[in-house]
């Protein structure tokens, strides 16, 4: 009996967590899309600087990692394809797995490490040093001032980063293609593009958009829920990273299943 009680209460806890994530995202959406029409300021400048930090500054590391991932994918695919004498399919294998899955996912993981953790640390520090309280006493809504710009930045930047990651992955694959599979570089690119349908790229981008919302909501919520001192900020940051990775994978699964069954008809 106690066992079922535990399951029940942990399910309840998880639902409550998802509920508060959705609520925070909803309030941020309100301040982004509806607030400006009711005379509340849209903090465009703050969103731009967040986008610089979360997006543009992530480019070098993202490029490097996704280039390697593309190369690894090519090597792994070639290992199996070679046995069937189908090594020329390596281009389409890399292109499809990058755009449909690994591009969005690897981008999300890197952004979690760089920005999701930073959101939790920033808001957590502000919470424990009473800066969030200070905003409220100054009649400045913390969600509008701090959270909404992060949402705008992430929802715009994550799909952009994903497109870049897809491109770099294909580029990484082409290194193998050119060196080991008798492709010329232009032919590799053409072969990759031939393998892709708009649908493949689009489903990846839809996923990355959802990942952006998830990462921001978790990072900000963990930050805002910090109580106590500096030690708790560290704990919030860790929780934000672990929770984001888990939820991103979960969202990935749900959407991949959705696309799979929608694609059947």
């Amino acid at each position, binding site marked *: 009996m106690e066992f079922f009680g535990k399951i029940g209460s942990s399910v309840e806890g998880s639902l409550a967590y998802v509920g508060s994530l959705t609520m925070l995202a909803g309030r941020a959406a309100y301040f982004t899309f509806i607030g400006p029409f009711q005379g509340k*300021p849209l903090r465009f400048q703050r969103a731009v600087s967040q986008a610089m930090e979360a997006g543009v500054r992530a480019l070098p590391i993202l490029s490097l990692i996704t280039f390697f991932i593309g190369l690894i994918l090519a090597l792994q695919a070639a290992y199996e394809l070679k046995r069937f004498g189908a090594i020329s399919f390596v281009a389409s294998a890399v292109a499809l797995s990058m755009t449909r899955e690994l591009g969005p996912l690897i981008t999300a993981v890197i952004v979690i490490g760089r920005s999701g953790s930073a959101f939790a640390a920033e808001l957590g*520090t*502000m919470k424990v*040093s*009473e*800066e969030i*309280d*200070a905003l*409220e*006493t*100054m*009649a*400045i809504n913390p969600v509008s001032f701090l959270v909404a710009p992060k949402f705008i930045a992430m929802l715009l930047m994550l799909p952009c980063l994903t497109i870049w990651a897809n491109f770099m992955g294909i580029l990484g694959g082409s290194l193998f293609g050119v060196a080991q599979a008798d492709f010329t570089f232009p032919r590799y690119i053409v072969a990759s593009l031939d393998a892709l349908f708009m649908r493949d790229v689009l489903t990846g981008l839809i996923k990355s958009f959802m990942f952006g919302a998830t990462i921001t909501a978790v990072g900000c919520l963990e930050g805002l829920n910090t109580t106590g001192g500096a030690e708790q900020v560290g704990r919030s940051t860790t929780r934000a990273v672990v929770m984001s990775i888990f939820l991103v994978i979960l969202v990935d699964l749900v959407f991949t299943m959705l696309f799979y069954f929608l694609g059947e008809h």
Partner: protein
Amino acid sequence: MAAAADIFGADTSFDGPMISLRNLRVSYSGREILHGINFDVQRGETLVILGGSGSGKSTLLRTLVGLEKPTSGEVWIRGKNFSAISESDRDEIRKRLGMSFQGGALFGSMTVGENVALPLREHTKLEDSTVEIMVRLKLDQVGLSGFEDFLPSQLSGGMKKRAAVARALAMDPEILFFDEPSAGLDPIIAAGIDQLILELKKAFHMTIIVVTHELASAFLIADRMVLINKGDVVALGTTEEMKNSKHPRVRQFLDRIPEPAVAQELDYLQMLTEPATKSGEGRQGKSR
């Protein structure tokens, strides 16, 4: 309404009590911290809230500025029931309150100047040049001229607190709240903060609420004081009345007499649970 309006177009003609607490009760996760507090604060008055650690004085202050919600009872600020009005009405009132937090609570990513300018940029349509002048004025007022471009991390504790006061003053508030203004400061800098509070009171006829347990500072700046103990008002009166009070808790607090040593667990439990007051002297808002 139009007769008395400040530069932000706000009406300044209210002349009832600036703050009025009616049987205010506040709980944290089921535990009641404040057990029915009643008192009024008049315009231009400096009220010091005294109390030991864990007495509920910080909770009281947080409730006054709307950071905590009362479980029952009412907080009236400028004739409006602070806890029953809409969020946007509450924000309108908040624009006339200034709060100086214990640790300053300056935004670490902004310079001192940007910190002070923030409420002006958010709530007024003043030109940037005007905002800059106002920031300079406010920093001048707290003795921090020329520190606009410093980051909070580059300031000493006392300077941080002064910068926080400058930010609290940015919107020319009618009521100014201080949470432990001299906590963690050396006596000379603490005296400087006291001086600043006295100047603000004299120059702007501001209503000032100070939470502290520094007795010297309290007696210097207060018009009236209220002593909070275990979530109840023990005594409320002018500094003279407090000095002459015979209430055991007031005497204990003012004469700095330690709590009796706890010999037995039972005594300790009783000490924690006994009602805060035994006699009714100077006592307001008896609620239990």
